[in-house]
């Protein structure tokens, strides 16, 4: 029997005939078929079906569950469109609320509560109170959800009805599924409500944890979300709770696993014993690794959350770094996140292995990924002092491939290495100078120009090199123009005779031939500096060639406060984007840690937010300033 042939148009009249009662239609086979056709047409938005409202209504009373279900589906779909007709269906539905079969009671209850019409809402209040105490758990749980739906449709009606108290009663129900349904309903109501807030005491929380194992996976995720409303008052209490929750980390449903991680991370803020906290967090590692065998979408969310957890507890996956090695056939979003995790897990002990791996990625087919890999190598040089030499060797090896985008990417990161370790690795400048021709991206150009300016006195032909870049000055982007201006001034300061002509030319261009106020301002500033301090070159040198602020990769990691907020949102979209909820959704509720005697005093909840790293714009480009979020290795 196929619904596919049910889609002929102009069928309403025909279907009406088929729905008519007929003694020969013994098991209602014909009417069932007709209803299937109606539902199928309804799904395809064939609004002709609405004409059959009275006929379908007649079928509700038939002694067949399947027919009843289809009628109910029909009502849910069309009652909202036809309120005047809908009211005619109400008596039959209310009748079913008293059926001796709990399944029918639940079905009709669900149907009425899915139809948010005033008449339906009002008619439901009284029976709901009764059904919340129904002897059958299936009905009680349906009633709990019914209250939540009723609340969404008419809040004041529910508030004056006392139904919320009825739902509260379900929290001590003997059936775990009913308890979780009650909790879900309350959660739903408080989520949407301005005034109400869910708060759970230790006794209740403890009971919830106890029934957790007996609930189905989705109820578990509900309960886990609700546990965030419990504020531990005592460190021992929090620790005990976390210990009891940790078996949930072994659930096969990934949302249960991440939900558990979220609650345990939350509880650690209230546990004073550091060793205990470390012990708890260590348990996150294996389940997170197991999530990597799930579909890509789930893997991705798991990896993004790994990234977040690792920023706080980098040691938990220290020995598992290989599971994050990329396969060439991983989707790019998985590869990019794995790369960030590898970067976070890198240490002196595993750096050689990691560099071999990154070197491999740099020869992949996907250009976007290759760039990220090269950038990661450069950042590792800055992150791990002892590894800088290896990183530079790897980069030079890559520059030798002479693949344009690799050379450019390497140039950018080598510039940063020079800044981090002045006067240490400049011997490699000559290698870079051999590849000037392949630079065509502004960022790489600006980086190379910065290097030439900064080391103008060591590069034999620095004036010629700059001159070549200056040839296209007017066509360059503003970041390259600014870099050229500064580099030329540096050249002049270090080698006045060689730079004199160039600097005059550039200052003239920058002040007279440009529409860009930044370039003009900087031009004038240098001009004034050079002319007024002409008697005292030392001062000019001090200003232009001053010590630069140290750069580190720390500026890329999230500040403590953001990290704290994100960790309360493990598994949510904000943990995927690594951005606070408020930055993603305007006006959404921000989670924060509730005060309690047990709350650990950390930097984040005492001090004001840490200001993001700020680096003056020396070469006109600021490669390392990232705002407090986003990809660690973004380009």
């Amino acid at each position, binding site marked *: 029997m196929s619904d596919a042939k049910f889609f002929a148009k102009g069928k309403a009249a025909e279907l009406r005939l088929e729905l008519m009662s007929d003694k020969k239609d013994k098991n209602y086979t014909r009417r069932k078929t007709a209803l299937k056709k109606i539902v199928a047409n309804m799904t395809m938005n064939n609004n002709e079906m609405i004409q059959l409202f009275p006929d379908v209504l007649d079928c509700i009373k038939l002694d067949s569950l*399947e027919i009843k279900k289809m009628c109910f589906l029909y009502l849910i779909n069309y009652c909202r469109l036809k309120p005047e007709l809908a009211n005619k269906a109400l008596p039959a539905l209310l009748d079913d609320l008293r059926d001796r079969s709990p399944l029918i009671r639940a079905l009709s209850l669900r149907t009425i509560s899915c139809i948010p019409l005033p008449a339906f809402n009002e008619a439901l209040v009284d029976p709901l109170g009764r059904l919340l105490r129904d002897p059958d758990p299936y009905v009680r749980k349906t009633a709990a959800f019914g209250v939540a739906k009723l609340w969404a449709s008419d809040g004041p009606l529910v508030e004056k009805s006392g139904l919320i108290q009825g739902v509260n009663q379900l929290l001590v129900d003997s059936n775990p599924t009913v308890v979780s349904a009650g909790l879900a309903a309350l959660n739903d109501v408080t989520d949407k409500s301005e005034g109400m807030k869910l708060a759970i005491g230790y006794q209740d929380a403890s009971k919830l944890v106890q029934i957790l194992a007996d609930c189905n996976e989705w109820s578990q995720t509900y309960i886990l979300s609700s546990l965030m409303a419990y504020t531990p008052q005592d460190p021992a209490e929090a620790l005990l709770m976390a210990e009891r929750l940790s078996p949930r980390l072994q659930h096969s449903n990934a949302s249960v696993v991440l939900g558990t991680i979220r609650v345990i991370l939350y509880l650690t803020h209230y546990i004073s014993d550091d060793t205990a906290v470390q012990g708890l967090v260590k348990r996150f590692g294996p389940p997170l690794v197991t999530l990597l065998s799930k579909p890509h979408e789930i893997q991705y969310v798991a990896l993004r959350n790994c990234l977040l957890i690792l920023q706080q507890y980098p040691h938990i996956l220290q020995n598992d770094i290989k599971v994050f090695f990329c396969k060439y056939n991983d989707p790019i979003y998985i590869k990019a996140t794995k790369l960030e995790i590898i970067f976070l897990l890198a240490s002196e002990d595993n750096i050689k292995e990691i560099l071999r791996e990154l070197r491999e990625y740099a020869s992949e*087919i996907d250009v976007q990924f290759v760039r990220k890999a090269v950038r990661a190598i450069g950042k590792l040089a800055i992150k791990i002092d002892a590894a800088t030499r290896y990183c530079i060797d790897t980069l030079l090896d890559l520059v030798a491939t002479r693949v344009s985008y690799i050379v450019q990417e390497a140039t950018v990161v080598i510039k940063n290495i020079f800044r981090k370790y002045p006067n240490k690795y400049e011997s490699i400048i000559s290698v870079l100078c051999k590849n000037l021709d392949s630079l065509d991206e502004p960022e790489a150009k600006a980086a190379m120009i910065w290097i030439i300016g900064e080391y103008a006195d060591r590069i034999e032909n620095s004036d010629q090199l700059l001159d070549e870049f200056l040839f296209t000055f007017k066509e360059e982007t503003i970041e390259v123009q600014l870099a050229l201006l500064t580099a030329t001034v540096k050249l002049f300061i270090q080698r006045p005779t060689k730079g004199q002509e160039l600097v005059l030319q550039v200052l003239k261009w920058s002040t007279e031939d440009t529409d860009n106020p930044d370039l003009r301002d900087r031009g004038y500033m240098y001009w004034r500096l050079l002319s007024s301090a002409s008697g005292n070159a030392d001062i000019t040198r001090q200003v232009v060639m001053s010590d630069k602020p140290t750069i580190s990769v720390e500026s890329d990691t999230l500040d403590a406060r953001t990290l704290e907020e994100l960790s309360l949102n493990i598994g949510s979209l904000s943990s995927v984007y690594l951005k606070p909820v408020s930055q993603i959704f305007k006006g959404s509720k921000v989670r924060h840690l509730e005060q309690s005697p047990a709350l650990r005093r950390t930097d984040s909840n005492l001090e004001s937010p840490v200001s993001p790293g700020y680096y003056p714009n020396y070469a006109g480009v600021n490669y390392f300033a990232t705002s407090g979020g986003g990809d660690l290795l973004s380009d």
Partner: protein
Amino acid sequence: MSILAVYITDINGQQLFEYPLSDSPPTNKMLQVALRDASADDIVLRVSSDELLFHRRQDSLDFLIPCSSSMPALVPLEFISHLIKVLHDYFQPPLSRPKIEKNYSTIMMLLNEMIEDGYPFVTEENALRDLVPFTDGLSKYLPTLPKGAASSLKSITSSGLSSKSFSSDSSSMRSNVPWRRSNVKHNNNELYVDIQETLSVIIPAVSPMRQLLNSVNGTSNPVPTASAFYTPAVPQVLAEPIVAIAHGSVFATTKLSGVPDIQLILSFGNRVLEGPAFHPCVRLARWRERPGTLSFVPPDGKCCLLQYTISGVESGPIGGDLKTGLGPMKDEFEVRVWSRVPRNVKFVENLRVEVVFDSERVQNVKGTRASSGEFNIEQKGVGVWRFPGKTPMGWNASLRGTMVVSEDLEAGPDGTVPQEFPKYIKISYDCQGMLVSGTKVESLRVVSGKGLDDRAKPYKGVKYLTHGKDIIIRG
């Protein structure tokens, strides 16, 4: 925190099925716009300021689930997995447009049970089969059921309005085994265990130095094409895998009457199980007391009891390597695969070797000579070398060829365009009868079975399957 609607579309975005859960959910049209504008790494899309879209492609259908913004990301993603599993269970994989169109009312009824108040609620196939009639598929299930049971099942699911069948229905909620269908009856009591391991391996490139040494030693002469079959062993200087991970799944298929309580003891050798994840029916306390012991009352039918990860396993029954710069012009590559000397298996199946190259730089592969199997360029940048049917153990094969470099490539600094070679080799296969981690079933017994005949010997056997999924050899 709610699901706003469920859409199923074909891969062109044409809507096949719609199940709205809120007053005005985003329409499929809006979702398609969001999908079109999305970049590859947008797993979660923002449809509006407070609406998200989660999506997955399966069996050439797209499942789209718009949600409100507070929804934890994994809930809809896991829900899609469950929904697909349930639809597979009802309508058999793979799903297709006709299957969806044929079963609108059943899918509607399923979703009506699976989602309650905009949140996933019941997703276990067993519980759903009690709640939603199985009209089309029912006949498929009947042969496994005795006559009496068939009619009683029918009375529950389709027309039974008797209070008896309903109380048994909803009593499943009251029982301690919410995942088990009530009143299960089977004539032939059967119990099977399947353990599958999916193997992922990354083997690094052999450095040119080692390749050279290898050929000096005379061990890597090209395998002569005609006599390639059954040359016993392939002496190799092989690179050690960087990564060799087995993801395992232990399935139980139980067709047992009543409420059977089962104990399955597994041995993992000396391996360390990383992050085992259990079906809710498995008693965790028993596992903790004695790791390897699965004690459970199973759902009826097939279920996944345990998933685990073991890293540092062997690289599996099939090996391979890639050599480049061969031949008089030094422009040839050679891929070799071989099956290792037999363990307790006789063959592998569906062996397939993908040769991946940079399609931007390579326009064709010429002069390919395969000692066996068939090699074809099947998609952009991927040549597939297939070995249909069974491949015996202690066997090998080789493939040689030359990549034709695109004409429009710029010459390098030395004035020549560098020769291109394959970037990766990916081997995949199925191997029955063994698990790469060495995991074994030690014992399986029905500890107690309320409603099960004492004399029944239901345990019919265990199947092991190693699925070599991504055996990647880097070039």
